[in-house]
């Protein structure tokens, strides 16, 4: 009956989104009066999960699962859910979790709701609230199947501490040849770089910055804040910045605590993708820019003057508050 949660880690460290899904799973388990079992891959030490209410950890140690592999991971999660008799399986909305969830849904014959932003509104019928129309609306969705899969929108629930035991147990699933018919041959990943999906703060630049050579000050601001970098669509279309930084309705969604938009007008397609951020700051020299209607704080003025000044002041602030 245990609520099953897939907790991703990287080089032995749990991602923030994993601690968030664990926190969420704990409260779902309380509603259903059951416990939380986390599934981890190749982690030596899962004790951190204790603080987020995890009762039991099923760890899989297997070299073949060193790289994420959606089909194989879906197979493992299915076997773990069966072993635990889980009726609810919870994942984050990281790229890997979004990849594995629909495969798992078919294997478990489970209904899947993605982009869920709240605790279930009721357990019977099982109702969740999720975003739809790229953040322009929410839908209250009922999952009718016996087993339910929830994809929790990153940063929508936050971390909540709860004491658990996190009793670790080795789990040895049966893997087949077919699980490895998609093979990873190369991973190209920047180390120690905050990603948009995992970031608390995102600093984003638009066409108002005039050219790629002006991104130094944006990078300085981001570094000072420990933020991820993002940009508007035309900026990536023109090749000023990589596609991976393009945010908005047709780019990556942003759901950070703080989103700082610099030289971005605030077109409807841009706003749709970043609206889920909790606090938005806009810096733009045109007081009529639509972003001023969608943000919490705004500074009207020239980004080339404001951004370096703001970075200096933030450095002072950080030094004082360190």
């Amino acid at each position: 009956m245990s609520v099953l949660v897939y907790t991703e880690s990287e080089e032995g460290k749990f991602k923030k989104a994993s601690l968030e899904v664990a926190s969420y799973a704990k409260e779902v388990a309380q509603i259903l009066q059951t416990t939380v079992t986390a599934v981890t891959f190749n982690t030596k030490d899962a004790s951190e999960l204790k603080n987020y209410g995890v009762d039991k950890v099923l760890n899989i140690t297997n070299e073949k699962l060193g790289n994420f592999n959606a089909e194989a991971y879906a197979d493992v999660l299915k076997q773990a859910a069966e072993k635990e008799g889980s009726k609810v399986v919870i994942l984050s909305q990281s790229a890997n979790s979004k990849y594995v969830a629909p495969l798992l849904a078919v294997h478990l014959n489970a209904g899947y709701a993605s982009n869920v932003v709240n605790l279930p509104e009721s357990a019977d019928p099982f109702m969740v609230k999720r975003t739809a129309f790229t953040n322009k609306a929410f839908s209250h969705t009922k999952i009718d199947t016996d087993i339910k899969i929830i994809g929790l929108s990153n940063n929508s629930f936050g971390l909540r501490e709860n004491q658990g035991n996190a009793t670790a147990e080795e789990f040895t699933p049966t893997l087949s040849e077919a699980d490895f018919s998609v093979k990873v041959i190369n991973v190209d990943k920047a180390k120690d770089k905050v990603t948009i999906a995992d970031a608390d703060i995102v600093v984003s630049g638009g066409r108002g910055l005039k050219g790629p050579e002006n991104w130094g000050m944006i990078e300085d601001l981001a570094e000072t804040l420990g933020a991820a970098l993002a940009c508007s669509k035309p900026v990536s279309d023109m090749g000023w910045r990589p596609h991976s930084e393009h945010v908005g309705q047709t780019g990556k969604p942003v759901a950070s605590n703080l989103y700082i938009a610099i030289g971005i007008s605030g077109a409807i397609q841009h706003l749709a993708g970043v609206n889920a951020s909790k606090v938005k700051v806009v810096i733009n020299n045109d007081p009529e820019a639509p972003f001023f209607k969608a943000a919490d704080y705004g500074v009207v003025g020239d980004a080339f003057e404001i951004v370096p000044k703001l970075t200096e002041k933030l450095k002072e602030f950080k030094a004082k508050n360190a």
Partner: protein
Amino acid sequence: MKILVCISHVPDTTSKINFTDNNTKFDTSGVQFVINPNDEFGLTRAMWFKEKQGATVDVINVGGPETEPTLRKALAIGADSAIRVNTPATDGFQVAKQLAKIAKDGEYDLIIAGRESLDYNGGMVPGMLAALLNANFVNTCIGLEVEGEKATAIREIDGGKETLTTSFPLVIGTQKGLVEESDLRIPNMRGIMQARKKPLNVVEPVETTTQTSIEKFEKPAPRGAIKLIDADNLDELINLLHNEAKVI
């Protein structure tokens, strides 16, 4: 190589989103519908396979007659034929089931879908389809090359990318980056004329169940007024972000 491109028919990105019938139905009045942008990247790549590697490209939608102009647009861009499964799309699983039937019967090698639809935002149809077909699956695909039965794909991951090798049958969930923005095609007059003569086959759905249902929609709460801070008083911005918003 036989390619099937899944086309979701979605409100144009500038659409105002409203609901009717006590917030249970999307209000389509005055809304322009387009090919889901993620599917348009996929269709463009499919055209490349057609022109450079002799692939045949069919497009498919699960939906009512109102989606036909969107399928015609895909034909005008260059697809060979279109299929409409005549049933409203109710949830991701039901759509995947309908697509799986056509994909299997048609013996498609490569099935291209979008990472996510702009309206439902399920991010589930391509993965479910792959699982139902027992086909290989690459999500958030931003690069695809094919040689015989073998495929090499690039997948976007959080903070980077990954190169994968696999084989047919293959389903991909794709997005921006698969082709350049400048490669996207606007149908020209000749394409539109030809599209009128290309087959658009309407097939009846197979029996299936749904797993989820939308009970009600809700619009986000209106936001409070913005606080403007003077450009000469950035300390105040830092103060507000720290003490009021508590985000730094």
